[in-house]
């Protein structure tokens, strides 16, 4: 898939170094445009939108106090928020900055766990970007939809 020059520049931001010690694209060999496009198709198959995802993730984030330990939400989700000093810039160069925070949700009924950062919510909501395969904060749409019951 061809991609626009600005996506090439954004890809550079996503590589290890400029913003984080990990690569937002992971080991994915597809282009940024292709990753976004294919995840959009996946969402369509699931009958969801990126907004649905972000809204559900934000719901859980709001239920967990910073470094407050696991909180039980809706009787079956254990939600924990670890917050760090500092902020991280959005690699799409839109001037958005997210607190450095990691949210962990365990669906106790399913016995399955998902993890994301505050930045993930913005990347999904504003850019439809779930990160590349193999990236530490890759949000696998079908798995996250299952665990978060979206």
């Amino acid at each position, binding site marked *: 898939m061809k991609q626009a020059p600005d*996506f090439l520049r954004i890809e550079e931001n996503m590589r290890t*170094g400029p913003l984080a010690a990990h690569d937002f694209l992971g080991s994915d060999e597809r282009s940024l445009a292709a990753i976004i496009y294919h995840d959009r198709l996946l969402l369509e198959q699931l009958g969801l939108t990126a907004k649905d995802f972000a809204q559900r993730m934000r719901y859980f984030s709001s239920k967990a106090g910073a470094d407050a330990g696991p909180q039980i939400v809706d009787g079956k989700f254990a939600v924990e928020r670890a917050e760090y000093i500092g902020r991280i810039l959005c690699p799409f160069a839109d001037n958005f900055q997210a607190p450095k925070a990691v949210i962990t949700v365990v669906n106790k009924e399913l016995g399955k766990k998902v993890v994301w950062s505050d930045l993930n919510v913005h990347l999904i909501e504003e850019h439809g970007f779930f990160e590349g395969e193999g990236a530490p904060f890759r949000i696998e749409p079908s798995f996250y939809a299952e665990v978060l019951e979206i």
Partner: protein
Amino acid sequence: MSVFVTVLSLSSLATILAALVSLADYHLNDYGVCTININGGTRTVDVNGGSSILSSLAKHKIFIPSACGGKATCGLCKVTMVDTISPVLPTEEPYLTAKEIEGGVRLACQVKVKRDLEILIPGEFLTVSQYQAKVEKITKLTYDIKKFRLRLLDPAQMEFKAGQYVQVDSKLYGAVREEVSRAYSISSAPSDRKAIELVVRLVPGGICTTFLHEHVKVGDKLTLAGPFGEFYLREGADHLIFIAGGSGLAPIRPMILDILKRKLDKKMTFFFGAVSRKDLFYVDYFRDLEARYPNFTYIPALSGAKPEDEWDGEEGLITEVVARNISDPEGKQAYLCGSPGMIDAALGTLREIGIGAEHIYYDKF
């Protein structure tokens, strides 16, 4: 699909235009040598135009505080422009109040030097030095927090106030192709001038914390600048409340040690919040201080204690614990250090207790 292609096309057009402007700026604008006049001529430096004020001054060993290394995510590098030079950028707006904008305050990392400038900065910035240091000892405090003891080589001593921080430069490692500079509070007492200690929590994906935790070894040399910061002890209170979580303990420890060493007649209560026992550190250290000094009280608390922790101390969010233990605001000052969420929560609690904002101090990176 058509929407996607349209978005891509518009993005492409915008990018091509931006790239053209950037290229034209680079190739056609030769700003030559520009003079930066600091504090009414206290210091003047000649710099090659085109770079930010922050980096231009750093080349002349004038270090403006910056916890993010110039990415406009910390808002610390404020300078006052004597002349209006250009409109405030969107990247700066979140960090500047209307009053600051009106007064000519800008972020030094976002303003490029394109002509002679006059700026005002706090005088102490001119005394900040760059240091070479050797890693003398690395101590694992918890599963994600390490203490680094750095022997100062050149200059061999640093004078600092308890609570201040230094900026450490990372080096290239692994696939990281960019050196960054990050702020870390000094966790050792100011009486020890020949070495400093830093307490660093590993941030998932953090460039500098990953460098320090996973790539720095005993004997390695590091470059750092400092001391920086206005988070230090103030006069005028007889009961100091310290609230910290995680590596936020770092600047609090030297404050407590400084007061004890100077035998100041002040009561101190240190609230330290953690999730579970595995997140606690320095417990024996502070309990020992508590046993030896009647004016010091140490209250660690766990917000998510597990049965295996066998914890019989305070439980709950650290702010809840503060509210349970402090009720009278009279004669009190509060010093906070931790994550932004903890700071915000603590500010709310202290406000409810009745401690005025003018008596609360914190660094919020």
